[in-house]
């Protein structure tokens, strides 16, 4: 397997996890760059090219809210989970735990 296709498989694998990670970290307001650093501190490395379009998509789906604020002379777009997203998150967590235990058994 070439490195590139290996990377692609890993990317596919991580895609859904990133959504869950982002939603769980947006229980309080964060702007994009602070979210990247936050996720990275938790061990989830994600680049801007993936995160920003994802945030936009989640907002379009109504799972996040965003608003622009000027801070330190710089406009920043703050994201936070919406009520709809807040309702969905526990269900996603349950689903995730199910996947983890199922895959744990399967890969034993």
């Amino acid at each position, binding site marked *: 397997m070439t490195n590139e296709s290996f990377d692609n498989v890993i990317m596919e694998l991580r895609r859904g996890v990133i959504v869950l990670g982002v939603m769980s970290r947006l229980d309080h307001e964060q*702007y*994009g*760059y602070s979210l990247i650093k936050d996720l990275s501190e938790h061990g989830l490395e994600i680049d*801007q*090219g*993936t995160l*920003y*379009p994802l945030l*936009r998509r989640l907002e379009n789906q109504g799972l996040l809210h965003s608003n*622009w604020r000027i801070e330190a002379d*710089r*406009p*920043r*777009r703050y994201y936070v989970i919406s009520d709809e997203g807040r309702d969905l998150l526990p269900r996603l967590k349950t689903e995730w735990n199910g996947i983890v235990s199922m895959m744990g058994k399967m890969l034993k």
Partner: protein
Amino acid sequence: MKTTMIDRYIAEIGKRLALRNRADIQKEIRSTLEDMLEDRARHPDRTGEENLVVDLLREFGKPEDVAASYQTERYLVGPQLYPFFSLVVTIVLPILATVLMIIMSIGLFSSIVSLKSLHTKISEDDARLLSEWQKRVRQLTGNKLTLGEVAGLIGRIVEERYKALPEGFSKGDFKSLVDALIGIASEEASGRG
């Protein structure tokens, strides 16, 4: 220096974004770039501001790639309809063109024949032969699928596609669809006859 380079970079990205949310995306990218730059400037191994920006932009990605990441996938022919589209282009259209050409050349030929029969003096035997020929041509063109019928048939396939997809068709197995097509054609023929 730093501002103009970032400006140009963001303008390049903007060119490739849909107008609807272009300004918004650009604003967000700029804000992020400035955050990152500030972060890096604080880092001890700084090598001068200009290099910092160059490195940052290089790392951030080519403008076309950055812009592309914001696009949802766009299709001229979507993945669901693609097998059908491919079938039409590779099989149905050539058949259609051939049939059309045959019909046209027969039409042309028969009109030349009738022109000749009008304008030349011919023996009675020849005239009988010609009119016999013309009758046959008419029979032939009458019995073949006309253009309208072919178009109808294609319409029928589209309709059928949603009702009863031949198994395997969605995976690009054209043989199954061709079989179905032949089935429909013979069904139509027997229905008429």
